[in-house]
Structures are given as C-alpha cells and as structure tokens.
C-alpha cells in the first residue's frame, strides 16, 4: 500500500535556526486521503507544509512524493498545490488577470473555460475584474483557493484554509475538498484547533512540542 502513497514522510526532522522545530515525523497520504494537522501557534504546522511542498529544506529523514524520493533542495512540482497565508496573487492585477497568468504558466488547457468554472465555483463572479488589492480577507482566501483549483494538483497542501471564510465559503471549501478526494487526489490541511470545520477527516494528527502524533483513525 505504501507504494501508492502520494505523500510519505519517514522520520522527517526540521530545525528552526539551531533548535529542532519538530522531529521524527511519520505520515502517509494515499489517493483520496485527507489528513488534518492540528497544533498550537508556533508548533511548526506552516513549516511542515513548506517542507512538504519544497519551499524549505529538512535536516534528516525521507520525503517521498508520488513514489519518488524528494531531495532537500527539491524543484517545484506542478502536481503539488500549496495554499499558504498569502494568496500569491498580484495585488495590482485583477483576479482574471492573475488566474490567466498562472493558468498560462501551468499550461492549463481550455483556460478561459476553466477560469469561468473556477470563478463561479468560488462565488467570485462579481469580483472577477476587480483588482486583488480591493479584496477583503475572505475574498482573498477564496481567490487563493481559485488559484489552487485552477492548478488542479494531485496533492493539496493547505495552511489553515478555513480562516477568513464565511459559512458559504466554508461549505464551498468542503465541497472542493470532497471533489478532490473523489478524483483520487490527497489533501492535507492544517488548523489551530479541533473545531469541526471539515466533515469526514481520514486522519487527525496533532503537532505539538516537536512531535506529530495521531489523534484518531477515520
């Protein structure tokens, strides 16, 4: 079963400066899998995601993505989608222009049609031609999710994706995650609390005091 995992960490450790941030992290995400990593502020959840996406190196251990070992200085992989605390969108461009830019860089086929679908899915039709700098925090989060949905990665890594979203936005995100899992993608999200913001969670793990441990099995 391990061979089919989209993401696998074996005994992964990471330092923050000279002190260890977390160590001995083991996790595995198979197609259609969902994992939620919960932990207090400063536990290293965001850093964990950055390591998994390849934005940060790790000290030791083994990281596998799509069955291939990833080196410490890995190149970005378009099959991995990442939503961080920033939207990665140009503030002075409109949502449409931003999505078009990323779509062209990723080589998304039938781009105009895909942008139409994504913008409608995120409920951003009315803001499509507005500059990102005029967006509220919730709209910005939706715009970031739109960028991710346009990319359609196989592995979704989302850092506190529910923050800033209203009820409608939360429902939309839940549907987005369900759809991704149905397609066989794997999803890993982080959250600061155990709140029931997402329904059927396959695995909930807790990252605290430098250790990642399982809370329950779904």
């Amino acid at each position, binding site marked *: 079963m391990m061979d089919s995992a989209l993401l696998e960490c074996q005994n992964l450790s990471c330092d923050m400066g000279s002190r260890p941030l977390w160590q001995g992290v083991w996790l595995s995400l198979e197609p259609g899998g969902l994992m939620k990593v919960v932990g207090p502020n400063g536990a290293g959840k965001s850093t964990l995601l950055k390591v998994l*996406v390849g*934005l940060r190196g790790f000290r030791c251990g083994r990281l596998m993505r799509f069955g291939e070992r990833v080196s410490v200085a890995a*190149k*970005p*992989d*378009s099959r*991995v989608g*990442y939503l*961080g605390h*920033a*939207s*990665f*969108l*140009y*503030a*002075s*461009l409109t949502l449409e*222009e931003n999505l*078009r*830019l*990323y779509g*062209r*860089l*990723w*080589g998304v086929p039938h*781009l105009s049609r895909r942008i139409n679908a994504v913008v409608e899915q995120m409920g951003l039709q009315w803001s499509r031609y507005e500059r*990102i*700098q005029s967006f509220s925090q919730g709209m*910005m989060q939706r715009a970031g999710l739109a*960028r991710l949905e346009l990319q359609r990665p196989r592995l979704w890594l989302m850092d506190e994706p529910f923050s800033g979203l209203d009820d409608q936005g939360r429902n939309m995100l839940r549907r987005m995650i369900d759809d991704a899992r149905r397609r066989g993608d794997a999803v890993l999200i982080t959250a600061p609390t155990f709140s029931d913001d997402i329904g059927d969670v396959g695995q909930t793990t807790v990252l605290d005091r430098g250790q990642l441990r399982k809370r329950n099995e779904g």
Partner: protein
Amino acid sequence: MLAKQLFSIAANSGNATRGDAQVQAIRRWVVLTAHEWTLQWRHKDSGLAVLAVALLEIAAFDLSMNRIPRLLAQTGPGILWMGFLFSGTLTVTRAYAHETAEDVMTGLYLAALGQTTQLVAKLTVNFMWLLGSVWLTTWLWVRLFMAPTRFSWAVMDLILSLGVLGLVSVGLLMARVGLLLEGADPFLTVWLMVLDLPVTVAAMGATWALMHGGDVWPWVRGLAVFDLIFLTSTLIFSDYLREV
C-alpha cells in the same frame, strides 16, 4: 495590445510543442514578458520617472543657461546620462516591487518559473520602456539646445540602446539584492549605483564623441563589453539570490 499579441503567441506555441524544455522556457518568457508589459502599462513607473527627471533638467538648464548655448552643447551628454542614471536606476531597482505583496515570488516559484526566465522578461520590458523615454529625452534635448549639430541618429540609437541595457542589467541585480534584504537598507540603491559608473562613463563618452565629431567606436566597444559583463553577472547571480 502588445500584451495580447504576446499572450496569443505563447498560447499557440504551448499547444504545438508540449514537453520540449526549450520551447517551454520560451513560452514562459513570452507569457511573463506580456505580463510585465501589462504591469508597466498600468503603472508606467519606468517611463514616467525618466521623463519627469528629463523635463526637470530641460526646464532648469533652459532657464539658467540658455544664453550660453555652447556650454549646453558641451555639457549636454553628461547632464543627460547623469539624469538617466539616477531616474533609470531608481525605477529599475523597483522592478520586483509588485511581487513583494502577497508573496507572489513564492507563487511564481511554485509554478516552476525559473528565476532566469522571470529576470529576462523583466529585463526585456524595462529595457523597452526605459529606451523609449531615454530616446525621447535625447531627441528633445538635441532639438532644444543643439539644433545646428549634425550626427547619425543610427549611431545614437546604438549608444542609447547599449547604455540603457547596461543600466537595466545593473538595476535588476540591485532589485534582486533589495528583494533578498526585504528593503532593510533603503540606501542600497545609492550605494550600488557606483556599479553603474563604467556604463555611464562609456555612454557619456560615446554620446559626446558623436555629437562633437570624435571617435565613437572605442567608447561603443567599451560599452558593449561592460554590458556583456553586467548582463552575464546579473543572470548568474539571480539564481543564487533566490529567496523563497
């Protein structure tokens, strides 16, 4: 309009040659260049700053020295290139300003966009904008203060192009360093402006020689060599200066 044409070229080439690494790189460069053009067109930073400084220079020198036309003709190349140096450097070093908000650099990096592709796109668009305003300023200066002077505009175009290429190359290297330091040293641009000295001196010398019947080519050759050095250095260092 230009941006739309570039985008359509990029879209077509992408469909025709998927998987080919070189074509992919060119396609991404075209996409980025069109995108940079859109950003510049919307903000018009590069062109307007140079024109503003040029108009200030023209007004100041016209008011103060118009009665001594010989002096203006003699000092013209120096005055012009010092203006291009300051206004050009100040605008080009802000080339990454749009990427700082919302951590766009990380997003572009994750879209597997190489630093070199992005840098070449920025270089292309900044060069076009800066060259346009530099050419307009020079033409205005010659018309206003050096009307009887005759010289080849083709050679002048070559000098302006090489000079602007040098300023943009050094400016982009400074912009990359500034991005790495996250604006920690606001005087960085001023300190690093000294790097532009060889290009500025060579461009000044070539312009003066052209306007006053001297030998232009040693200066032009020097300018080309400096351009090559700075362009290569900027391309090499940009990959090392990646910050995510």
